[in-house]
């Protein structure tokens, strides 16, 4: 689809996107290097999860660039008006954005995973690596969905980055409320994390599906909000 191609170019043409890519590439390997003496069954994979800040920013930037309020003075100059005149179907526009984002994050995740897992001398299985990559992609899409819903990048940045911290919020909540294991980040982490204390007996594939479900719901809600609002 040439629209996907256009969105890809738009995304990669943004300076913040390059910053986000750099973050995505650098953070996880650096943390893995710092932790290289700690050996655990999740070595490498845990650090890979911590490096998500880059893809979260990417997911936000993919959409928030259309709404930039700080530099644009009046309604007519916002990029979204241009985008919509070029591709009148909003659904098509969003689908193209999602496609461009998925492609970018997949490539980024693959490269970063390779580096991080090597640095951490991790146990590499195809299933785990695939799970880790999917985790990044779904997180980026989640960030996009929340940005569309709240029409601002602030909420997804705060909520999602707080969750990639060394001690994540949902993880803590799950100690009190075991049902919290069904939150997207915890469930999704079952795809590649073997250790950890969240043991609800969620199989990797099931965890992936749960995270997919969450992402689909949020992205759909965001898309509906986007399509129904005035530009």
């Amino acid at each position, binding site marked *: 689809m040439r629209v996907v191609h256009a969105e890809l170019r738009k995304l990669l043409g943004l300076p913040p996107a390059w910053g986000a890519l750099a973050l995505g590439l650098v953070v996880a390997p650096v943390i893995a290097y710092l932790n290289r003496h700690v050996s655990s069954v999740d070595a490498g994979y845990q650090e890979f999860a911590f490096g998500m800040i880059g893809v979260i920013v990417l997911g936000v930037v993919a959409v928030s660039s259309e709404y930039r*309020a700080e530099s644009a*003075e*009046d*309604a*007519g100059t916002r990029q979204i008006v241009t985008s919509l005149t070029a591709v009148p179907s909003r659904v098509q526009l969003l689908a193209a954005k999602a496609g461009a984002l998925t492609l970018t994050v997949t490539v980024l995740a693959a490269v970063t995973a390779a580096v991080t897992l090597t640095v951490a001398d991790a146990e590499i299985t195809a299933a785990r690596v695939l799970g880790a990559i999917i985790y990044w992609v779904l997180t980026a899409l989640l960030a996009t969905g929340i940005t569309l819903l709240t029409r601002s990048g602030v909420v997804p940045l705060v909520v999602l980055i707080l969750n990639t911290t060394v001690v994540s919020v949902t993880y803590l909540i799950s100690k009190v409320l075991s049902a919290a294991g069904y939150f997207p980040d915890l469930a999704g982490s079952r795809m590649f994390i073997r250790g950890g204390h969240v043991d609800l007996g969620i199989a990797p594939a099931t965890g992936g599906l749960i995270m997919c479900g969450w992402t689909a719901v949020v992205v759909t809600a965001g898309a509906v909000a986007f399509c129904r609002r005035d530009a």
Partner: protein
Amino acid sequence: MISIDQITKQRGRRRILSEVSFVARPGRVTGFLGPNGAGKSSTLRILLGLDRAQAGTALVCGRPFRRLRRPLTTVGAVLDGSGAHRSRTARGHLRWLAASNGLPRRRVEEVLGLVGLADAGGRRVRGYSLGMGRRLALAAALLGDPEVLVLDEPVNGLDPAGIRWMRELLRAQARAGRTVLLSSHLMGELAETVDDVVVINVGRIVARGTLGEVVAGHRTLEDAFLALTAPGQTSPGQTSPGQTSPGLSA
């Protein structure tokens, strides 16, 4: 009274303004004309202390803008857009602005009435049309009942009724003894509004004088302007007041 004297501004390698000098007198509307990118906004921003010049002085009532106490009581400025945060209401915006200069709260309602936004005062600025935004900017400028008004492309975005209303308001302000300086590139409208004219091109003043003096020899202000700012025109820089530089076709 506004006096600009030998303002020079450089940004990196580019000369934006070269020895720009002119005055705007009280009781008169002075039009500051130039093509896009000529340096009108840059000059006004330097006058208001928003940007720095490398040389020259820009004085309002004999003082640099930054030295004014309670500047809103001396100068009112209308710049780009509405100048207000989109999530605020018009009233909320004017409230903090009034507080910043110790102006009484009732001024907020008074200026909203003056510009015709009394009914829309409680609405958030993001819902404002382009014209309403400009009116809000004008209301902000009038808050302190200043003796000097500086306006950058004030009729930008206004409909014909709005343009006429703005013109009459500005002329009334001048008649009351205030100094009004406005920049524009809309000739027809300007010719109806101004008493004095300053023409700038590529960062240099190419003409100064009363409307009659600058238009002399041409049919309309538009003709004079186009002749003065034609590409290939070698700008002679300073001309003495009352004289226009010879228009030429290359």
